[in-house]
């Protein structure tokens, strides 16, 4: 049975490589029971999306229509 530390390690690695079947199963089991790690999983996805948006130049708008 995974604990949260191990689960977060796997969730990080899943951003860089496909997990094995066994890893996916144990992770899924853990996520079913753990809100914190489910949110962590989402947040890893968010960080990737946010970073991509940043690189695509969606940096602070220089115009002042937002402020």
């Amino acid at each position: 049975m995974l604990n949260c530390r191990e689960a977060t390690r796997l969730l990080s690695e899943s951003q860089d490589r496909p997990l094995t079947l066994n890893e996916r199963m144990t992770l899924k089991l853990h996520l079913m029971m753990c809100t914190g790690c489910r949110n962590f999983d989402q947040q890893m996805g968010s960080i990737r999306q946010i970073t991509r948006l940043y690189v695509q130049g969606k940096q602070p708008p220089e115009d002042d229509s937002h402020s």
Partner: protein
Amino acid sequence: MTEGPPTVIDDNPGEHSLQLLDNQFLADLRQQMLRFALLQLADHALAEDAVQEALTGALQNARAFGGRAALKTWVFAILKHKIADTLRYKQRVTDASSLLRSEDEEQDFSALFDARGHWPADERPGDWGNPHETVREGQFWRVFEACLDNLPGAQARVFMMREFIELESDEICSAVEISLSNLNVMLYRARMRLRECLDSRWFMEQKSSC
């Protein structure tokens, strides 16, 4: 062929290109590019070269861009390619020993978890909502940049190679000469730290202010 090249707008160069080439905008852009390149290449001269080339190339066609956002996207795309080329070519830009030595890199996150390796109640990640909503707030990017700056140098470098330049793990390993398991640990630490920083400086703040 009576039409000019499609990438150049001939008839109305005035106001628009003047805005694009505003000095302050260029200075800011150059600064952002330089920081980005420097983190990747860890060498000031190489970074300056990459930025200069990318910027010069992009500005030659500056008039073709519909606005600053488009120009920025374009220069960063060029810069990413320049950096990737430089990294692939000069594989020994950063030596592994200096990459792993820094004490700051050693901090582990066992403190974040309890003795059984679970989240303590006050550290348990919450719901961040939709990232596309988040990034609409101009202020958010300031926090994001501050959190990126907070990453220890080597972590920032591999994180940006992975997430900004989108190199694969094996490419990063050979570029900075570290093992895959070292890389995995560094990426994990970078993500944990970035997550923690964004969480406390942005997402929790937002929640408490509503």
